[in-house]
């Protein structure tokens, strides 16, 4: 590396001093593409977003915005869109729980009982990704439609009243979120479960643990890293999602994503930005509490 040529004198001891320093430089060099990427696509946009959230809201795209440190954008956003914000977090939590309830048994079955069909089953989990997100969500409009089989059956079973429907309800939105983000939970969880050493389960069984206890005391704790990663990959995008609410919901199921989208479309950049910052902060806070409680930092 060129660093060597800058060394003064270049005495006999230089060679031995040089080796570790070169290695250190090499490490930074390898990090730099990632670092650059992070600066360009994360740091700069975040700073811009936060700055925009403090602009004077009376400006517009055409006239330009003035930086007035307008903190009131935040209080306005909370007052006007508080319910949507809470609803988003609520829907995301419910969808994540639904994903865990369906995804854990699925990932467990693939990892432990899949045998030679393991890969095939994983492909089946990912297969829906081959069609577009929009198309998949739109097809739920059809599945949950008033005149379709599901609603008819539920009405016939008196689960739904004669006028009851599924589409354009919170249930439909949460169903859509659950469906769309399930694979993001299953894949990291599968990876964690797959790694669990089967000999540990034999040891647990040898030490008087029934299969259920062995699961609770060994498999579950060892799958926590995958479970935490999976729930984060489900919860975070679900909280910011607006497609599912847009296509499967109604005006009372609007999520914060819908509002941000509308505000941007209407040119109200400062309010949209402050709402985005609030959403981001809320997610970071919740995730920090969650990860700490799950105690995964102790796990390898």
């Amino acid at each position: 590396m060129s660093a060597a040529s800058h060394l003064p004198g270049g005495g006999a001891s230089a060679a031995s001093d040089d080796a570790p320093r070169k290695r250190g430089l090499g490490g930074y060099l390898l990090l730099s593409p990632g670092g650059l990427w992070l600066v360009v696509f994360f740091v700069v946009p975040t700073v811009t977003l936060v700055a925009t959230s403090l602009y004077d809201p009376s400006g517009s795209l055409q006239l330009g915005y003035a930086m007035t440190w307008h903190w009131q954008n935040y209080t306005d956003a909370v007052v006007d869109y508080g319910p949507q914000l809470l609803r988003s977090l609520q829907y995301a939590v419910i969808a994540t729980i639904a994903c865990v309830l369906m995804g854990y048994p699925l990932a467990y079955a693939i990892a432990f009982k899949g045998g030679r069909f393991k890969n095939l089953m994983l492909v089946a989990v990912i297969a829906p990704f081959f069609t577009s997100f929009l198309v998949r969500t739109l097809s739920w409009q059809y599945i949950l439609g008033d005149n379709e089989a599901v609603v008819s059956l539920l009405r016939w079973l008196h689960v739904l009243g004669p006028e009851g429907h599924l589409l354009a309800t919170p249930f439909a939105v949460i169903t859509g979120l659950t469906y769309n983000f399930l694979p993001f939970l299953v894949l990291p969880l599968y990876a964690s479960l797959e790694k669990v050493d089967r000999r540990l389960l034999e040891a647990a069984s040898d030490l008087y643990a029934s299969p259920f206890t062995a699961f609770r005391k060994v498999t579950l704790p060892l799958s926590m890293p995958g479970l935490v990663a999976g729930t984060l990959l489900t919860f975070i995008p679900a909280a910011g999602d607006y497609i599912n609410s847009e296509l499967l919901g109604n005006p009372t199921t609007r999520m914060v994503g819908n509002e941000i989208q509308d505000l941007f479309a209407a040119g109200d950049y400062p309010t949209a930005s402050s709402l985005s910052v609030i959403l981001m902060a809320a997610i970071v806070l919740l995730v920090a509490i969650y990860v700490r409680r799950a105690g995964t930092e102790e796990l390898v």
Partner: protein
Amino acid sequence: MSAAAPAGAAPTEGTSAGTDLVLRGLRKSYGSFTAVHDLDLVVPSGSFFALLGPSGCGKTTTLRMVAGLEEPTSGQIMLGGSDVSRLKPYKRPVNTVFQSYALFPHLSIAENVAFGLKRRGKKKVDAEVAAMLELVELSDLAKRRPAQLSGGQQQRVALARALINRPQVLLLDEPLGALDLKLRRQMQLELKHIQTEVGLTFVHVTHDQEEAMTMADTVAVMNKGRIEQMGAPEDLYENPATTFVANFLGQSNLVAGSVVEGGGETVALDVQGTRLTAPRARLATDAPQVWVGVRPEKITLTRAGSPAPSAAAGNLLAGGVVTDISFVGVSTQYVVRMPWGQELSVFLQNTGAHERLVVGDAVDLHWSPDHTFCLDASQDARAGVEEDES
């Protein structure tokens, strides 16, 4: 054992026969392959029992069947007078020290050791765990995770985790296999010491014949799913019943011969035209064709034609030529080519009593008839010879 006779005679009395581990016709097949052939075995309560054999001989499968981790194809496992063959592993009063240790990586050492007690509903385990960690000398590491321990320390945690439950039988599946030689020798002594101290039945599976002989009261040598021979280590070594045992336990020189006169206490043998004798008691067969065996360390070498030293007098094979010499500290190992082309090994103690020999020297082999044994010649003379080790 005095026949465990009257079936079900109050096993709670705690007679030693009542707590023996008994295997009856135990068999395990995987499709057309039979890993364990109708094994019959009694492990007396409180003994240190070793199942010795090369890898793939069925010893680990046998152990796993006792633990309940494999289901027998047929046969019975009796423990303390009751049949446990169909019990789930977590319902058997048996614990295992696994070859891989299988310590729970997410639990501390103390939590690992307490695992079995807690599963059986015990609430206050701290004192017992502390005492057990004391026994295996790991008290300082109670709060560590398994990954922070060395191999030898992990091995002791695995032992403590099993021992603390006071199982009727402790199963050890090559527990020392992952340790280096020096640590292994040290742990062998420690294990034997602990077994004497706690007085539990240990069933130890190993492929290391030295390990089996050092630790066990009784050794069963297994080969291809069957027990070749069982007995005290000295008995097995001095009186091997098969060529496999003769070769797998230590080394043996096996030379083709025939019984020419077998009337009295000793039998006369013909080996390549030379007449040898052996005690009748050490004949493991009635067939006239035999493998005549002698352990390398029982033989003394003299220069061709010299008289035999008194201790080794009796049997003499003449006309050998030294072809290889290796010095291994306590002894010197010679390879001697006989006139009929076979190479025999001879170990001489480096006591200074022997004349130094060099490659090419003509020598005679002497040994006492008492050290001669005879095995059925229909067996493969090289069965059980370890290819990779001396």
